[in-house]
């Protein structure tokens, strides 16, 4: 058991990039793979996940490069075409105010993706921190943290985020508050899982040894405990991107999230939805893009989960 876990730890260190490269000997033999190569190979075997990754990277590229190559700016108003359907000059049509739907969608895409990735990173870090601290210190710390987790689970996060962002500061940077709020209500379930995994780890010999050598607790958590659960954290962070994007667009849809003049896929969908039966192009482009991003993130997450899980069937025949 402990041997296997130490193996896992090495693995985790490799995942985080601190790996020593395989010796040329190993590479030549062509059979021995280090863990990272193994994971990459298992991931690549999953066609859905690979498609998801490619689509996600393409969308990220579109979000970054798009604003420089589209014919219209997102805040530009074309006085000659209001509510016009897709045409040669406006590839995805225009809105009621004469703004280009393509440019708006790309702008919204970049904001939604940015929010999604930031929230996922923040909430997974928070989950790792709280879960491992609770289990490692035990006693009153654990009780308190678990109680806070229960409390946050009881509070309906959607309503509370809506309340705070309605009353909070408005302006160009109000989306950062939204990121913080979404992260603050997104970590609890993972923290519970991290806690139960840490409980199993903290009594292992090497953790005990580190403790008796008076390695400080934060170092033990960061160097010996978290690397062991990094598989879970990687998968969780990936799936959280999708959840965060859905949360952000949902709030923005009701006008509680991203505020105009800033744009996200949620605000665009809300704008387009009221007239979706008559002028569907305003609604359809951001909506389809939203589904595609979340779908690709979920596919990547599933693929990662299979690739990282030693018991899964993704090992295929080669193993």
């Amino acid at each position, binding site marked *: 058991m402990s041997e296997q876990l130490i193996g896992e730890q090495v693995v985790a260190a490799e995942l985080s990039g601190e790996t020593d490269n395989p010796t040329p000997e190993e590479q030549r033999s062509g059979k021995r793979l280090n863990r990272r190569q193994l994971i990459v190979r298992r991931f690549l075997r999953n066609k859905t996940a690979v498609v998801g990754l490619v689509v996600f990277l393409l969308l990220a590229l579109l979000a970054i490069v798009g604003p420089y190559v589209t014919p219209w700016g997102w805040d530009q108003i074309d006085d000659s075409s209001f509510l016009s359907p897709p045409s040669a000059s406006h590839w995805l049509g225009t809105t009621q105010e004469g703004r280009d739907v393509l440019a708006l969608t790309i702008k919204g895409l970049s904001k939604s993706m940015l929010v999604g990735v930031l929230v996922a990173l923040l909430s997974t870090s928070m989950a790792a921190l709280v879960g491992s601290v609770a289990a490692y210190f035990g006693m009153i710390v654990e009780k308190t943290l678990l109680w806070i987790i229960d*409390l946050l*689970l009881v509070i309906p996060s959607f*309503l509370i985020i809506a309340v705070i962002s309605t009353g909070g500061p408005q302006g160009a940077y109000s989306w950062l508050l939204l990121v913080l709020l979404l992260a603050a209500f997104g970590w609890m379930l993972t923290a519970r899982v991290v806690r139960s995994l840490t409980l199993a780890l903290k009594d292992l010999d090497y953790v005990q040894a580190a403790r008796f050598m008076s390695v400080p607790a934060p170092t033990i958590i960061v160097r010996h405990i978290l690397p062991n659960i990094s598989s879970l954290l990687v998968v969780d962070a990936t799936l959280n991107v999708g959840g965060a994007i859905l949360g952000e667009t949902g709030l923005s*849809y009701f006008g*509680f999230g991203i505020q105009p003049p800033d744009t996200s896929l949620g605000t665009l*969908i809300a704008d387009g939805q009221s007239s979706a039966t008559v002028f569907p192009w305003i609604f359809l482009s951001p909506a389809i893009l939203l589904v595609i991003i979340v*779908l690709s993130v979920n596919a990547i997450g599933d693929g990662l989960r299979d690739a990282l899980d030693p018991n899964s069937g993704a090992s295929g025949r080669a193993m």
Partner: protein
Amino acid sequence: MGRYLVRRLINYIILLFVAISLAYLLAATALNPRALYEVRNPPLPPASIEASLRQYNLSDKVPILERYWIWLKGVLFHWNWGYSPTGIPVGPEVARRIGVSTRLLVLGTFIGIISGVAAGAWSAVRQYGVRDRVLTVISLILLSTPTFVSATILIILATDFNNSTGIPFFEFTGETGQQGTEPLAWLWDRLQHLLLPTLVLVMVNFPFFVRIQRNLMLDSLGADYVRTARAKGLRKERAVMKHALRTSLIPTGTYFAFSVATLFTGAAFTETIFSFNGLGQYGVTTISGNDVNGTVAVTAFSGVCVLVGAMLSDVMVAILDPRVRLS
């Protein structure tokens, strides 16, 4: 066992009390009912604005703890959840909307859950077969489509159908509309209005339960006791139904209890899009309408739902799992 449940219940009640109090303090600080009066045209004199706000315990000139105390006394001693900024009592409004939400949600949620569980178990038995893959892809797509997108797409399709056939078959605003005079017309009318929202709710619940049940079923299909059952000579269907399916339904039971109890919290999108004046839609309108007491009441009700769900799933496990039941 009984003592354990009572201790848990007390813990839940304390949790709920803290959560609702926090929600009140937060809503009373962040929302601004005064703004509603200040935009009136012709402008009201400040003194009368203040008087109306004080009358409903909403004035931000009163210290927040004092407002909280008045509100708490009202709730605890008179079961009075306060008033909206326009003076409508919140309690009866919430009660009425719970009825609307229930009529909307029950059908779709149950159909979604039951069909999802059945389809998940069905596809686990055919793992990696064509039908399993198709179902997995469908549920992945549905899972990645937010309610406000799927509902709107359904509305677009329904409008196209109505326009092309000339028959207003699909209805998508409100609970009721124009009724014919034939017997049972009221029922037909309600069902017509329920059709699309129910479809949306099925699309929400179905993929979730397909995934859960498929994973659980795969776990139990690979378990030793199922292999033993087969090795003893049990036919495959019987081994699957009696040994694999039964055990894999236990954890699903907890999700089921939780989903049923938290029905009301997730329906804001469906209710808003299809103009059902239910609780989820109330939550949204109270926040954008700076209605402090209404927001707190909805939050409190959702909190109660979550806790009832948690308690129910504890009880559900106790009933279904012989290891817990007999200990």
